[in-house]
């Protein structure tokens, strides 16, 4: 059994070059935020390390953080910060029986997160779902297609984004009919 | 070879055991019923078609807000203070005319969430489960008891009352404004008379009001 704090420490020790942050002021459990482009390496470490053994990915959920805002720069011009899309990984070890929650965020205009499909096979469909619903592009995913929505759905339309708007037509049929 | 014979024996034997079970059931009485002729008794708490007892409805809109599928639409109009709408069975006074109480039962998901918040227990689920219709519109149940003309009348009444109120309000405001102006004038006059009194308090009071 390890507490998230200890896991955070050990991650920090192992991967000195990446940024880790622990968000602890949450009501239920703390979240460790990790680097989106190296999440697979972190995943391998978490799964294979003898003290951690996170062999099971309980759930992988894509989230639209809805934190777009306008940033005022020094020269008084405003630029749009599109906000971030995040992926939450809930990990569990069936042998050591401890849990941890990871979070990887990527900017909304280029939401690229490394796939963990090679680490945990479960992630395959979960990542497809996150791509389908939120529009996160998982790098090195073997088969990143839509999963719940029709395959011919508009390529840039992701229903679970907060700024999603219903299309007017789908295959020539008015929506809502 | 032993396994071979065992397999053959097992095959035949387990089939015979299974046949015994089905044979026993051959003589059990049937559990099914002849539906339209025979009907099952309904449980006490059964949740089927919604019904609204309009005598008790106070038009509070709580059921419509609780509904997760928005199948209830309620429109209400305030009654005149002189009108007596009566009381509900549990003693609440009605003050709203319910001009529209529609339940689109085709949308209803039978979750019963509308039933619990009702303060007068006037919306409830009955045990009627056969209510199919040929037209989808026929499933939109209208519970409001007021007739078309009554609704028009009530609306007019309310508007009239509203207008009167407005007029009254306007008149009151006008009167007040006049009063204020008067007061101000008086004060100003006073201030002119006594310039040395401490006028900070006096000046701020009208602003506050």
């Amino acid at each position, binding site marked *: 059994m390890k507490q998230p704090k200890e896991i955070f420490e050990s991650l920090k020790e192992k991967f000195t070059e990446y940024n880790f942050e622990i968000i602890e002021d949450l009501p239920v459990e703390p979240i460790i935020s990790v680097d989106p482009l190296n999440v697979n390496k972190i995943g391998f470490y978490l799964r294979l390390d003898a003290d951690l053994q996170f062999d099971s990915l309980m759930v992988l959920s894509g989230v639209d953080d809805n934190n777009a805002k306008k940033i005022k720069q020094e020269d008084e011009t405003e630029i749009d910060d599109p906000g971030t899309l995040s992926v939450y990984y809930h990990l569990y070890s069936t042998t050591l029986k401890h849990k941890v929650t990871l979070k990887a965020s990527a900017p909304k205009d280029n939401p690229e997160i490394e796939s963990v499909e090679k680490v945990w096979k479960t992630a395959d469909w979960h990542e497809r779902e996150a791509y389908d619903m939120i529009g996160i592009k998982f790098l090195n995913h073997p088969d990143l297609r839509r999963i719940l929505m029709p395959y011919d759905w508009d390529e840039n339309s992701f229903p679970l984004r907060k700024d999603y708007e219903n299309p007017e037509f789908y295959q020539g049929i008015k929506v809502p009919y | 070879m032993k396994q071979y014979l065992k397999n*053959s024996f097992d095959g035949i034997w387990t*089939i015979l055991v299974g046949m015994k079970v*089905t044979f026993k059931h051959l003589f059990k009485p049937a*559990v099914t019923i002849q539906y339209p002729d025979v009907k099952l008794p309904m449980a006490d708490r059964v949740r089927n078609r919604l019904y609204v007892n309009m005598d008790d409805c106070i038009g509070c809109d709580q059921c419509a807000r609780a509904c997760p599928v928005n199948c209830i639409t309620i429109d209400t109009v305030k009654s005149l203070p002189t009108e007596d709408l009566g009381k509900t069975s549990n003693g609440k006074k009605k003050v709203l005319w319910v001009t529209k109480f529609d339940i689109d039962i085709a949308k209803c998901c039978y979750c019963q969430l509308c039933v619990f918040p009702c303060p007068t227990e006037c919306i409830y689920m009955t045990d009627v489960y056969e209510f199919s219709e040929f037209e989808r519109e026929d499933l939109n149940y209208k519970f409001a008891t007021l007739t078309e003309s009554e609704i028009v009348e009530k609306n007019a009444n309310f508007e009239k009352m509203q207008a009167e109120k407005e007029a009254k309000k306007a008149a009151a405001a006008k009167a007040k404004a006049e009063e204020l102006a008067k007061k101000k004038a008086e004060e100003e006059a006073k201030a002119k008379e006594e310039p040395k009194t401490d006028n900070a308090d006096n000046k701020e009071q009208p602003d506050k009001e």
Partner: protein
Amino acid sequence: MYELLYDIFGSEIIAMIIAACMPLFLFILPFALIAVLLERKVSAHMQDRLGPMRVGYHGILQTIADILKLIQKEDIVADTTDKKLFNMAPVLVFAGSYAVFAAIPFSGAFIGSAADVGIFFIIAVSSIVVAGILMAGWASNNKYSLLGAMRSAAQIISYEIPTALVVLSIVMLTGTLSLNTMSIQQTAYFWNWNLFGGAADGFVQLLLLPFTVVAFVIFYISSLAEVNRTPFDIPEAESELVAGYHTEYSGMKFAMFFLAEYANMFAVSAIAVAIFLGGYQSPLGYLGNTIGVEWLIPYEQLFWFTVKGVGLVLVQIWLRWTLPRLRVDQLMTVCWKYLIPYAFVNLIIIGLISLI
């Protein structure tokens, strides 16, 4: 009857055709209707249900209503089917299963054809059904149908081998290929049936008894497979292949497959009865003999034959509603690894015993 028809029509061929077909339509068609109903009612009661209850008393007219409905239905032929084969297939299946009845002795007085090679004819003619099924599967231009048809062909052809072996052993025992002669041999009481060792002497019969029982079981199992009944109904396994080779059929053509299946069920039961269960012979002696009314005997025989046949059909139904179905390779395993060796050993032993 033939003479009467010859007088009416004045043509040998027409009279012959009608004489051959009449019994079938008088007996088999009603039987198929009754069997469908029987299946539905028996299965319903086995599953604590009621089954059809609306048409007629306890739903006895249900099948007739169903057939009427099927006749009225639009005959849908999909665009990409091979129309000639598609239309021919149900007829062929129907014909194949009905032709079998020609050689079956229903009673001492009525046999379609008392051919000396009756059993040989039956085994040969029942293979036509395979061609029909293959045609249906191929012509439908549907992958499920094709799979079903392929399975069916493989299955029916494979299971003909144990059937033939078992029949062969009985033929060795009785020394005849004619079903009628076989039935006559098993006369008088039920211990003379081939199931219980045939009409041999006391000691030999006792010796034969276990092997003829085994022969009967093998015959029954492989006959199940030949008519595509559970546990061998993989050609039309509805949970895998939707409806197998008749997926694309509707209306009357479907009804023909359907009726052919039930006719087939009775056909194999009837063969089993004729070979093993004393044919049309009564197990307990004849009432006609006892009270001295000679003309009653053929009717009694018909009655006994029907009772035995329907009894075996009932067992088929019972099995169907009890068992899951086998997988296609296991089906072959059962045939080639179990039934054929057993049948073969059985054949040799019965052969040796009958030498005594």
